[in-house]
C-alpha cells in the first residue's frame, strides 16, 4: 500500500510540469506489417514516456512470464483474441504526453483487413508512422501504407526503420531503405517525410539518440514527434460552417434566441461578418458567436460554437454557412476516391446513404471509373466492382446537393462516409479529388 504522494519531489515537479504545460495535441496513426514490431514500438513509447502505470506494467510482467524479456507488445494487444493469436485486431487509441505535447495514437493493425483499418486510423491523423523491418526493406505493404497516408492527406509521414540491431546497425541498409522510400514517395503527395533508424525492442533512437547509430544525425523518433510543426496544416482561408443543430430555448429568459450550433470546418468566423447560407443562397451578417464559455469574437476550426445571425432566415441542420465571395461547390454529382470496407461489393446502380458534414442524403452509384491497385498504383479501368479493402474512383449521384471542396484543400468538406441502408453498416469512405 502506497504512502501519500510527495508532490514536491523533483520527479513530481517535472511530472507536474508535463501536466500543466501541455499546449497542443498531435494525432498519430501507426502502420506496419505483421511482426514489424509495431506493438513493441508503441509499448516502448508509452513505457519510456511514463504513460504506463505500475499496475499495468505488473499485469504485462505477469502475462509475459516465461519469456526472456517483458513483452511490451502486451501493453497494447489487450483483447482475448489478440493475445490468443498474437495479432492486433482493430484500431486502438493510446494516450501519452511529454512536456511539449500530448499524443493521441491510433494503433492500426497491419493484418489482413489492413486497408480499412489504416484508413480509419489515418482519417484523423496529423502524422503517420510506417514501420519497416530493416532486414526485409521496403515491402509491398510499406508502399501501401505510404500510399494510404498520402490518400488520406496525412501531412507528415515518418518511416521508422526497425530492427536495426538485427542488421548490425548498418548505415548502408538504412540508406538503401531511405533512398528507396524517398524515390517511391515522389509519385505521391507527401509534403513531409522523415526516416529514423530504430530498435523498438531495445529502445534505440525511440526516445533518446542511440550510440549504436553514430552515423545518424537526425532526431530520435519522440523528439521528432514533439517538434513537428502542425499548426500550419489547417485551412484558415475558406470559411465553412456546417449547421449541426438549431438551438431554440423557448424559455422566457431567451424567448428570441435562435442559434446555429456546429463545429467550424475551416476558415474563421467573426461577429459582424457578412455570410451566405446554403442551400438558400441568402445573405446576412453574424450577430454574435457563443462558445462553450460565453460569447467569443471569432471562431476557427475545430471550435464548437453557436452562431447567431442578424436576420431570421430559415436555416436547419445540414445547411452550410460560408462567406459570399468564397463558396463551396454545390453538387449532386460526386466524383470520389472510395475505400470500400465491407464484404458485399460496391457495384454500379447500387443505392447507398452518403453522410457528408452534417448532411445525410441518398445516392446511387453511377459508375465505377477504375479500381486502384494500392500496391502498384495501377488503375484497372475494366473492374466491375470494389471488394473489401479495395480503393477506386466512383461516380455517385445524390438526391440532394452537397456543399463540397476538394479533399486536398479541405479535409472536412472534401470527405464523406457511405452507409448501407439495409444493414446500417458503414461501408465506405470517400474523398473528393481535385477536378481535372
Amino acid at each position, binding site marked *: *500500500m*502506497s*504512502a501519500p*504522494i510527495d*508532490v514536491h519531489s523533483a520527479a513530481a515537479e517535472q*511530472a507536474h510540469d*508535463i*501536466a*500543466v504545460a*501541455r499546449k*497542443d*495535441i498531435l494525432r498519430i496513426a501507426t502502420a506496419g506489417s505483421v511482426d514489424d514490431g509495431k506493438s513493441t514500438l508503441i509499448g516502448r513509447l508509452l513505457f519510456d514516456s511514463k504513460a504506463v*502505470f*505500475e*499496475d*499495468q506494467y505488473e499485469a504485462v510482467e505477469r*502475462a509475459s512470464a516465461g519469456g526472456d524479456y517483458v513483452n511490451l507488445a502486451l501493453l497494447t494487444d*489487450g*483483447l482475448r483474441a489478440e493475445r490468443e493469436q498474437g495479432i492486433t*485486431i*482493430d*484500431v486502438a*487509441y*493510446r*494516450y501519452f504526453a511529454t512536456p511539449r505535447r500530448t499524443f493521441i495514437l491510433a494503433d492500426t493493425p497491419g493484418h489482413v483487413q489492413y486497408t480499412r483499418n489504416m*484508413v*480509419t486510423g489515418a482519417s*484523423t491523423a496529423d502524422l503517420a508512422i510506417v514501420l519497416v523491418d530493416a532486414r526485409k526493406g521496403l515491402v509491398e505493404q510499406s508502399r501501401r501504407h505510404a500510399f494510404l497516408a498520402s490518400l488520406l492527406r496525412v501531412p507528415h509521414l515518418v518511416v521508422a526503420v526497425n530492427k536495426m540491431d538485427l542488421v548490425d546497425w548498418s548505415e548502408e541498409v538504412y540508406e538503401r531503405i531511405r533512398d528507396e522510400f524517398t524515390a517511391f514517395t515522389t509519385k505521391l503527395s507527401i509534403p513531409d517525410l522523415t526516416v529514423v533508424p530504430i530498435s523498438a525492442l531495445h529502445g534505440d533512437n525511440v526516445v533518446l539518440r542511440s550510440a549504436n547509430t553514430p552515423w545518424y544525425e537526425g532526431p530520435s523518433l519522440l523528439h521528432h514527434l514533439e517538434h513537428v510543426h502542425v*499548426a500550419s496544416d489547417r485551412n*484558415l482561408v475558406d470559411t465553412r460552417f456546417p449547421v449541426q*443543430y438549431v*438551438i*431554440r*430555448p*423557448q*424559455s422566457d*429568459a*431567451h424567448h428570441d*434566441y435562435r442559434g446555429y*450550433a*456546429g*463545429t467550424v470546418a475551416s476558415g*474563421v468566423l467573426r461577429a459582424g461578418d457578412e455570410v451566405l447560407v446554403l442551400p438558400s443562397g441568402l445573405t446576412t451578417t453574424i450577430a454574435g458567436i*457563443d462558445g*462553450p*464559455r460565453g460569447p467569443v469574437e*471569432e471562431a476557427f476550426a*475545430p*471550435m*464548437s460554437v453557436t452562431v447567431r445571425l442578424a436576420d431570421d432566415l430559415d436555416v436547419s441542420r445540414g445547411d452550410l454557412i460560408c462567406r459570399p465571395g468564397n463558396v463551396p461547390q454545390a453538387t449532386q454529382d460526386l466524383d470520389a476516391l472510395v475505400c470500400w470496407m465491407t464484404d458485399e461489393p460496391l457495384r454500379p446502380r447500387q443505392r447507398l446513404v452518403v*453522410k457528408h458534414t*452534417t448532411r445525410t442524403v441518398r445516392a446511387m452509384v453511377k459508375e465505377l471509373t477504375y479500381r486502384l491497385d494500392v500496391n502498384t498504383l495501377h488503375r484497372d479501368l475494366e473492374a466491375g466492382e470494389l471488394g473489401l479493402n479495395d480503393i477506386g474512383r466512383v461516380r455517385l449521384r445524390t438526391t440532394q446537393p452537397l456543399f463540397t471542396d476538394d479533399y486536398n484543400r479541405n*479535409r*472536412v468538406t472534401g470527405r*464523406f*462516409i457511405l*452507409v448501407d441502408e439495409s444493414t*446500417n453498416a*458503414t461501408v465506405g*469512405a470517400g474523398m473528393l479529388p481535385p477536378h481535372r
Partner: protein
Amino acid sequence: MTTPDYRLTQLETLEAESIHVIREVAAELERPVLLFSGGKDSIVMLELARKAFAPARIPFPVMHVDTGLNFPDVLEFRDKRVAELGVQLIVASVPEAMAAGLVKEEPNGSRNRIQTPVLLDAVEQHGFTALFGGARRDEDKARAKERVFSFRDEFGQWDPKNQRPELWDLYNGRIHLGESIRVFPLSNWTELDVWQYIARDEIAIPPLYLAEEREVVERQGMLYAVNEFIRPREGEQPFRETVRYRTVGDANLTAAVRSRARTVEEVIAEIAVTRMTERGATRGDDKVSDAAMEDRKKEGYF
C-alpha cells in the same frame, strides 16, 4: 500587426470534440439518455451537455443505475445537480430489480455485473436509442478499442471484432429497432484532462474526491472507509487516515487512497505524478481477470 495564434489548448480541443459528439447524437438519434452517477467523469459529461445546448436546456433525460450501495454524498450531489439544470432524472434501481427477481446478488457482494440487466431493462422500458457514457479509452485495454459511437445489438452486446469503422468525425448513428448506440464523448480524455477541466471551469464535485481524515480499515492492501456498507471484519482494526477517492463506484468496493490533496489543484498535482491507474488503485473488482472489462462489456456493461 501580430498574426493571431488560432490554436486551441488541449482542453479546448477535447471540449470542442465532445460537444460535437453530444450535438450529433441529439440531432440524429431519437431518444438519447445520459448516464449520470455523480462521479467525476459523468459530472464533466453533464457539464459538456449543458454547454452544447446553452442557453437552452439539455434536450434529453439523465439516468442513474443505482446499485443501492452508493455513497450518500454522491447521491446528494446527483440530485442537487439535476435539480439545478432542470433535467429529468430516471433511477433504475438494482435493489428493486433484486426484489422483483430480475437479478440475484452475487456471492462476492459486487453488483457490477448485475447492474447490466437492470440497465438494459430500463433502456428497453424507456425506449432509449442512445446512451451517453463517461468511459475513457485510457481506462482499460478493452476500452482503448471502443468507438466513440459504439454499436450495440438488441441485447446491448458489444462485439469487438465487428465494430463499425469510424472515420473522421462522421459518426454513424443509424440503428434498427431494439438496437442502440453507446456514445462516449470523453473517449479521448485522460484522468488528468478530466481534473484539469474541473479545475479550469470550477465545476462542483462531491467532497469525497478531496482528502479528509476518515475512519478506514485495511483490506487486501487497500484502504476502505468505514461506512454503512463497510464494517470492520474480525481482526481488522479501524484507524483514522487522511484519504480521498479517485473513483466513486459502489461504497462496499471502492477503496480510498492516502492523500494530502484538499483542493482540486492539489489533486491535479497528485494525479500528475501517480504511478497507479485509478482503477488499479481503487477497484477491487477489476482484478478478477486480465480481460474482466472486455468480458463485462460483451454482456452489455459500459
